[in-house]
């Protein structure tokens, strides 16, 4: 399956990339996407969106999904 992965703010800076395509099988959840794409454990305070909707890291992902990882939001 192919997942479009995006990173924002401090996470984007630390990983030194803003997006990538993850082409792999055996991914069930957003947490799996993070671990497979970054090779890291899940950090504390990691937020996730699936197809531009807030989600949980335990939520399922499907082929073609856009999965974004970012720190707590600070707008307004």
């Amino acid at each position, binding site marked *: 399956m192919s997942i479009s992965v*995006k990173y*924002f*703010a*401090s996470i984007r*800076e630390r990983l030194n990339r803003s997006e990538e395509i993850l082409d792999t099988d055996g991914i069930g959840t957003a947490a799996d996407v993070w671990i497979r794409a970054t090779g890291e454990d899940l950090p504390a305070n990691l937020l996730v*969106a699936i197809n*531009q*909707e*807030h989600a949980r890291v335990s939520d399922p992902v499907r082929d073609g999904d856009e999965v*974004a990882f*970012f*720190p*707590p*939001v*600070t*707008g*307004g």
Partner: protein
Amino acid sequence: MTVKVTAEPLDPWAEVSTYQQEQPSLAGQFGATAIFVGTMRNLNEGEVVRSMTLEHYPGMTEKYLEKVSTEAAGRWAILDSLVVHRVGGLQPDDPIVVVAVWSAHRAAAFDACRFIIDELKTRAPFWKQETTAHGQRWVEKNT
């Protein structure tokens, strides 16, 4: 109901004034307008802040601004709402966001305006990075 994200300097009063004049559905109908303007300060967490950069998630940002505006319209009897939010580089005293709500009577406008800015701050994907004398730092908590 309109939401906008802009990298251009924001004049909240001109935005509200222009929008109000361009909405024929408001003419003669609104008795109350509640406006919130969020502005960049030169101090945060005890340090002088020289400038700020606002990052966002294009697409999801607009979606969530529309979502909270729609939820406000469902909860209160409002006539219309406008949200304009800055991204990109800002200096102290620059407006960051304007939320305007029009209604027949004041309670709905006040309540919906408060709801929209409060929900925006917790749900819309924006991130602030500040520049201080010690370099750049990401803002980690919203106040």
